[in-house]
């Protein structure tokens, strides 16, 4: 059992996942192990280690601002379950 309290149902609902009680228990213990490992790391003095946002020591990978051909309208809509007005049609949403 992890030392970290995880609200697994909240995490699941934020990710729009429906978990069975068995799945919830399984994921809770797995996520707990990950957080426990953070505690292991926290025991070391990492003050001299440069923070990294990525596993690879590569940066500034960019492209020039040039446009190239896009999908045709038909290609773009090919996988749409429903389309109308040359657009993706979805159930009505209002915020």
């Amino acid at each position, binding site marked *: 059992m992890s030392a970290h309290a995880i609200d697994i149902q909240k995490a699941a609902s934020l990710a729009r996942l429906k978990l069975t009680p068995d799945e919830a228990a399984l994921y809770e213990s797995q996520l707990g192990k990950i957080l426990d490992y953070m505690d292991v790391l926290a025991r070391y003095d990492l003050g001299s280690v440069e923070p990294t946002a990525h596993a690879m020591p590569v940066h500034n990978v960019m492209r020039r601002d040039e446009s190239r051909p896009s999908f045709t309208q038909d290609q773009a809509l090919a996988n749409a379950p429903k389309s109308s007005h040359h657009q993706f*049609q979805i159930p009505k949403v209002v915020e």
Partner: protein
Amino acid sequence: MEFKVTPVMPQYIVTIGLEVHAQLNTRSKMFCGCAAEYGADPNTLTCPTCLGLPGALPVLNEAAIERTVLTGIMLGCTTPPVVKWDRKNYFYPDMPKNYQISQYDLPLCLGGGVPLYDLAYPKDAQRSIANPGKVVKLTRIHLEEDVAKSTHHDRFTTIDFNRAGTPLMEIVSEPDIDSAEEAFAYLNSLRQILIYGGVSDADMEKGQLRCDVNISVRPEGQKELGAKIELKNINSMSAVRRAIKAETSRQIDCLQRGEKLIQSTRRWDDDHGETTLMRTKEDAHDYRYFPDPDLLPVHTADILARVRAHVPELPHEKRARFERDYGCSTYDAGVLASDKALASYYEDAVAADAGVSAKKLANWVINDLLGVMNDNAIAITGCPVKPEQLSALVSTVESGKISGSQAKEVFNEMFQTRRSPEDIIKAKGFEQMNDAGALETMVDQIIAGAPDKVAEVRGGNEKAMNWFTGQVMKLSQGKANPKMVSELVRKRVLG
């Protein structure tokens, strides 16, 4: 015994912060090579990346980063040595990946501020600016991708992904704005600066500039800010002012009734002039930001050095230069500098003729050109009068070749017909007669025919002199140079 107690109405302090989204005017989208265009047929500018198809990977658009860095330099921000990209997770149909690529803790720009220009305030508020010279502090500017465009029909919604993935800059101010007028001036000044930098076309009506407003109200004397209430759906410069005024009085009314305000998001309804509740803090989003593993960090030193070489002159710098170099009044220089295209027009006109009076030219641009442009709803870029033509007209009238009222007539004709001032002056026969010999002949002719008038003048009635001048002008069909005529009359009559 009864005491009458006069309740003291507390004064309220309004605190406003703005979150402005500005579309960058790049050729391609932020993370793919689809064209970033406005007004194309729906879903004709998409690819696997901007449709969020599985397996597609984003690649950074260099120009979008440069333009954001340039904006930061223009606004006095600092750029961290390393910036990175994060995923902002939420589920909404306009965002097919179920996350928006944005920047969380290491954005491209931090700090800085937006100077509020006097002429950027609403016209009716320019005479009573509470904090002249104010610079509104910024929190940060980050770069992210725009979402798709939803259209709501009666029974369903449709989605066009052309806009999805286009580069969007979010400019976040500190809660440092004190009134609706300052908020208006902030947006307007920011707009000018973005246009000067060529980073965004910044047209609010086209959605290139969008603005959310955070407002809180607290009674005077209270230290901590009141509940932060966010306003959405503000779609024009004038709506910003209306929305803030309406929401401020709503909040003050609530507090005066003893109600408690809670952190919430409200929608502005410009037709009804009121805000309505969208959601409260309880159902606020939890975006679960985390670093995007698909994108590598950006080291900014080289980019900063490159961009710094291309920082343009800013509106207030141009205004100062116009005052200094062209002798414009502060007001005229401000009007000219407030619109980059107008300032360029003016400078082209000044440069067209080395001898022209730059100050007089400024008067013509502001009083005559702007007036007729506004009346006809024409932008300066579509002006039918070319800068060098206006310059030639101003030189002609300043040299006395045509009169001021003739010049106005010529100008109107230039505007309507696009013809040159020379052609119009010739066609109208406005060329002034400056030939001293010919004028002398005319003056003598009038004198010879009016010995009684001559006697009158010589008898001491100086005013009768004007009669001679008028007769000569008539004889010349208005073409004689009036100044030369009156000098000649004086000389010949009084002799």
